[in-house]
């Protein structure tokens, strides 16, 4: 990759232009998410938002964050949002103007506080910043000989803090299971049929403790089938 490294400074400004156009796309998508009423389009736009966001992370040299954003933002959260949307309405109702105004003031204050805090951050690529000076230098120096993984962040997450990452994975797995149980992803429960040994068992003949409440679909309720 020496050819690329030699050619890199020439492209500094045009790559910045690419970054800016990606951020412009992000702004457009964010405004569309806020303004759209159709919730399905909002879910799709959120997937698009994380796609563009991850492309921007790649240009910021945060490949591992981009990887997570791609897997979680574009894949898993789209499916979770869709299943949540199926339980709720397809369209959002307009929010009255006074509540919008309060949220707008809060957002403006938070954004101003963040912009004010930017002044305390070290400059991009500063050699004396906290991330580059204390224990980070040890990780950078010793990863190549101790773990033999080219990406230092991956080595820190997977090897130096392996138990920590394992705990996080367990927590996230439990949270995901809880969300799946709450959403009830088997959406056509109550319309199932099992055929053990040729004997037809459906939800009317099966033990119905799980269906004590009427959680059938609307057309079944309208057609007036008896609740067992």
């Amino acid at each position, binding site marked *: *990759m020496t*050819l*690329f*490294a030699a*050619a*890199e400074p*020439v*492209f500094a400004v*045009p*790559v910045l*232009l*690419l970054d800016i*156009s*990606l951020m412009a*796309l992000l702004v*457009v*998508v964010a405004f*569309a998410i806020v303004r*759209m009423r159709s919730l*399905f*389009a909002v879910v*799709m*736009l959120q*997937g*698009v938002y994380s*796609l*563009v966001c*991850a*492309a921007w992370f*790649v*240009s910021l*040299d945060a*490949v591992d964050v*981009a*990887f997570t954003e*791609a*897997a979680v933002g*574009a*894949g898993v959260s*789209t*499916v979770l949002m*869709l*299943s949540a949307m*199926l339980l709720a309405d397809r369209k959002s109702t307009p929010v009255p103007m006074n509540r919008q105004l309060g949220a707008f003031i809060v957002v403006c204050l938070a954004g101003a506080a963040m912009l004010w805090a930017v002044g305390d951050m070290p400059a991009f690529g500063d050699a004396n910043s906290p991330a580059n000076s204390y224990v980070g230098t040890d990780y950078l120096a010793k990863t190549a000989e101790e773990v033999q993984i080219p*990406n230092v962040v991956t080595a820190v997450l997977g090897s130096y803090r392996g138990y920590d990452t394992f705990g996080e994975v367990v927590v996230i797995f439990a949270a995901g299971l809880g969300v799946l149980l709450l959403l009830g*992803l*088997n*959406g*056509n429960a109550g*319309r*199932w*049929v*099992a*055929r053990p040994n040729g004997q037809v068992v*459906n939800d009317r003949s099966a033990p119905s403790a799980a269906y004590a409440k009427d959680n059938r679909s609307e057309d079944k309720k309208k057609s007036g089938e008896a609740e067992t």
Partner: protein
Amino acid sequence: MTPFIGYFMLGSAFLIIVSMAMMLTRLIGGPTLYDRLLAVNSFGTKTVLFLCVFCFIIGRPDGVDIAMLYALMNFIATIAVLKFFNYRALNVTLMVNDESER
């Protein structure tokens, strides 16, 4: 990579971003659900292409891995959305429906 090819790839990346933006207008304004789904799928393909070209421009071969992940994740998301809207569930193949509801 000569500078000429570098600038050529920069122009290609800009064109891909322009086509992403045009696909975004179809996604925002698409009349039916399927138009939006088609636009999202096509947007994902273009993001994969943009990532591949962009990795060549900045000289960092890691990004192609992410492009690979996208190419798969995009497909999975599209199929998941279609399954949701056809059957209201993800595990349809595990059960036998007594009524032909679709």
